[in-house]
């Protein structure tokens, strides 16, 4: 993977409780292009006031759950990261 710059801009989506806490459903975020899922999640929690539910969140990268927080994510410009609180459909 080519790295033209040291950071990329991604879109972050918030839902349910995380949307209420972040006070937005969508935000732009700048992050290094290769990042551990756990580290990205921590950065998002810090930046978007999500501390109260920090233990309950997972993220999805381009509509796929990232189940392993140790996994490295390769991000491109415009990628979509969703902050996903515990789901309650049905």
């Amino acid at each position: 993977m080519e790295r033209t710059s040291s950071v990329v801009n991604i879109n972050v989506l918030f839902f349910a409780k995380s949307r209420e806490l972040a006070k937005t459903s969508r935000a732009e975020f700048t992050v290094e292009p290769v990042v551990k899922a756990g580290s990205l999640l921590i950065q998002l929690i810090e930046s978007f006031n999500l501390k109260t539910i920090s233990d309950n969140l997972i993220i999805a990268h381009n509509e796929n759950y990232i189940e392993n927080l140790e996994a490295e994510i390769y991000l491109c410009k415009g990628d979509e990261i969703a902050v996903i609180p515990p789901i309650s459909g049905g």
Partner: protein
Amino acid sequence: MDHIKLIRNKIDINHIHQLIIDQSCGACSVFVGTTRDHFEGKKVISLEYEAYESMALKEMGKICSELRIRWPTLKHIAIYHRLGSVPVAEESVVIAVSAPHRPAALESVSFAVDKLKSSVPIWKKEIYENDQIGEWKANMECPWPQFTETSSNAFEYSLCKIERQVENISESKLVQIRVSDIELTRRIKCFLKRKRDEINLHNIIDFKQQLRDSPRAESMLPKDSCARTQSILVKQQQSISHIKVHRAFEDRRQTRPDYSSQLNKLMATKHKHCELVKSNVLKNARLQNIEEYMRITPDDEDNIYNRIKNIENRILILESTSPEYKYYIKLGKESNNINKKESKKGLYQSDRLSEFISGIKRQYEL
């Protein structure tokens, strides 16, 4: 065909039914999830659903593919989920399938509901009567950690109803705890765990005291007991059990249910019941019972290892034959005393069968 939709209007169940029925299918299974009007005694006045729509559709599609792998006979699948505000008692989700036969239809729908609850990014907020802010719910099926900060998930109030409010608690007994909810939950969990441990410990101590009560009991137990009987039931104050017994002393000599006489009955054989071992040798009563049951005569009473080894050997032999071993083994000696009654029962043993056959042969030869 797969029909997947997120919709903001009332779900038309008839329409979905029309989508999935097929001439080749003898079964249509339809699950309809509706919204409840209460939660922990609070009245729910409305519900709000939101979804990560593109991903939710994708996940619902994955469910369809998985269903088709697991139940290849499925014809049509429909998964509809409602979004936005949903009044109480209206449909929030409908999952319907058609299949040639009933098992596939029923099982796959159940599977799909579980799967939907654990993987499709949809969220529900309940708005309560006296609390307009509402609460985001979490499915039990949700695989990642759920909220612990809300009272609902931290403690099952419904299990411990407060029936009587204690009044006039002196202020000095109350302590104010200022910690985060997560910390509070952790402390409650720790408390519960400690109480559980205390109860367990208490049980063990009871058990041991029991042995001390009777001086003879002490002597008849090996140091590291593997006792499984002497139980004690202590009725606790809050208990509403009707059992009045507080202590149950089980006779150590009859630890095993009387399979033997039962088996004798079934096999229609009169077999002397194992006589209980005399009290002075109670130390090895269980071992002796086993030996007697297995028909081993110990040659060296004191060498416990030898005796165990003999039992093991016997079990190995028995395992390679049949469960009715002891009747076969016995038969050689006792076949003469077989009384007439047995034959009426219609039970045949290999020895007697061969005897019977050779009898017929002899008749023919004559």
